[in-house]
């Protein structure tokens, strides 16, 4: 009976919503486009296939169907080219590709326009990258991106609101360099946008120590997270994200508590803690790397570079925080103790907040 009543209520709500905000189903509710790139001897050739409704939106046309007529499309073609030159964020070794439009055709039954282009290059490309999707005004838009070389499809990807870049590396030396540079940047970026990783490392350093000890902590963390990052990125082991993120929060609480409870002259187990929890942080890094997307042709290089980036990010934090903490501990031991107590309390509070958010509220 209750189920029936709820069902009635739901139907009534749907009706009320329709009255309040009538929704007209669009003819193009599944917006997508296609970008194909063919790598030839001295030229890139390609196609952009776009829906007339998306093109009409960018051109400011009120009647998208007009583009389905050859004469109207012909008239609008220069503006269509302009729009696509602005939206097609395709690069060859970091240099934007300037398409020279060669021909076009209508695919009326699917309301699509296919535009062919070519672009000459001085030297063979190492990395071809597309940023997208092609039409960003619609958050549901997806762009199918294919790269063809030597008669075969060598790269297939889909760009959408959650994946905004896709690159294909030819596997040559310069492409590897490009991959390495990009993934070092991604690693550094991730450390600086992830306050939990920062807090974990800073928490471990609060009690100070000699340079050798700090190096052991950082190295323990690095070795451990490199192992699990590789396992997850290669698809060998992928624990649930909720478990990973919650345990990362717990690791932060543990570090804070350890600082408060540790004996002054007891055994320093921080390197061990860093390594132990580093395994879990590695899975967290892998979640991010999954979003970025690893180039299959240079998987090992990308993974290694991402790790290097993470290390560089960590090193920056250590180099900024360690001398300051060392100075406080050396000059004003009482103030040093206060920093440890207050800092650890802050670390515990932040960890507890994240744990509740990730494990209990999710």
């Amino acid at each position, binding site marked *: 009976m209750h*189920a*029936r009543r*709820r*069902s*009635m209520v*739901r*139907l*009534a*709500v*749907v*009706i009320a*919503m*329709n*009255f309040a*905000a*009538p*929704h*007209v*189903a669009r003819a*193009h*509710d*599944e917006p*997508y486009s*296609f970008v194909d790139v063919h790598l030839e001897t001295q030229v890139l050739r390609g196609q952009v296939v776009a829906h007339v409704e998306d093109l009409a939106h960018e051109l400011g046309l009120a009647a998208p169907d007009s583009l389905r007529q050859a004469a109207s499309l012909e008239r609008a073609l220069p503006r269509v080219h302009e729009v696509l030159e602005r939206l097609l964020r395709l690069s060859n070794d970091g240099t934007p590709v300037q398409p020279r439009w060669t021909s076009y055709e209508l695919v009326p039954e699917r309301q699509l326009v296919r535009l062919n282009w070519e672009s000459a290059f001085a030297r063979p490309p190492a990395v071809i990258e597309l940023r997208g999707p092609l039409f960003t005004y619609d*958050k*549901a838009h*997806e762009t*199918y*991106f*294919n790269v063809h070389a030597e008669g075969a*499809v060598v790269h*297939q*990807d*889909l760009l*959408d*609101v*959650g994946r905004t870049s896709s690159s294909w590396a030819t596997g040559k030396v310069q492409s590897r360099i490009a991959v390495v540079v990009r993934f070092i940047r991604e690693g550094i970026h991730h450390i600086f946008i992830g306050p939990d990783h920062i807090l974990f490392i800073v928490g471990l350093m609060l009690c100070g120590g000699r340079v050798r000890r700090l190096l052991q902590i950082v190295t323990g963390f690095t070795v451990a997270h490199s192992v699990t990052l590789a396992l997850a990125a290669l698809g060998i082991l992928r624990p*649930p*994200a*909720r478990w990973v*993120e*919650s345990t990362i929060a717990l690791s932060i609480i543990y570090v804070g508590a350890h600082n408060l409870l540790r004996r002054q002259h007891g055994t320093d187990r921080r390197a061990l803690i860093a390594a132990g929890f580093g395994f879990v942080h590695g899975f967290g890094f892998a*979640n991010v790397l999954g*979003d970025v997307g690893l180039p299959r042709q240079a998987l090992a290089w990308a993974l290694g570079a991402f790790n290097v980036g993470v290390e560089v990010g960590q090193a920056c934090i250590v180099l900024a925080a360690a001398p300051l903490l060392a100075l406080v501990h050396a000059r004003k031991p009482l103030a040093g103790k206060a920093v440890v107590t207050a800092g650890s309390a802050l670390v515990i509070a932040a960890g507890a907040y994240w744990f509740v958010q*990730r*494990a209990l*509220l*999710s």
Partner: protein
Amino acid sequence: MLRPILRALVSTVLPTAAPAHEYWLEPSSYSAAAGDTLVVRAFVGTGFRGELKPYAPTRVVRLELHGRDERDLAGSALNGDLAFARFVLPDERGAVVAYQSNFAAIEMESAKFDEYLVAEGLDAAHAERTRRGATGPARELYARCCKTWVAGNEVSRVQRVLGLRHEIVLLGDPLRDARLRVRVLFDGKPLAGALVRAWRATGAHRAAARDSVGPEAEVRTGPDGTASLDVHLSGEWLLSTVHMLPSSLRHADWESFWASFTFERPAAATLPPPKRRP
């Protein structure tokens, strides 16, 4: 009495406000002889009317044929192809094509997201949002878990549990039972309280405007995850259900899993409507 009137209002006079889209597989034929080549395409839409969805290998977690044996169909199509798979049917005893995608992301403004939760019967998620006092945009990750049945006389093949993350498992014969029992599984466990809908497509339906046709039946699963749906009429059928959970990922608030099952009852399979249960 009031319910059909309300549905008729929703279905014919007013287009639905629900922004959510079903996703289903459609074989080139729902019955075929051994050795026939079949093509499977995917559609996304509402009211069992939709647009073709191109194939994207990066979205595929599983794309398999389950019949006489199990065959991996992933990789038989190229990125952007309108056909998800082409395969030769090994025998006439029936086969299920199953597809599971990974997550795609979408972001919706708060009011629209709440509308969608209500329209899809996602009461638990809606209550949770209300409890949290959520007012900002909702970031959702959604995954598709679809099956389609190329009919045959070995019914046990359609009843197999395939282990999709979210799965509609048939407990009866989709071509013979007027009231079809199904079990909804999530992570392999029965899912209670899931709203299962049955949509039917006929020639007239295909000509109807998108969003103008309501489901033929909708029912919540019981504590054991089972539900019975009236499917006595002939035509192409889509069973669908969606399950939503709060996300523990940093870049998402919610994760939804869309399960669907398609089959076709030929004209000869039309039965009298099942007796209404007390």
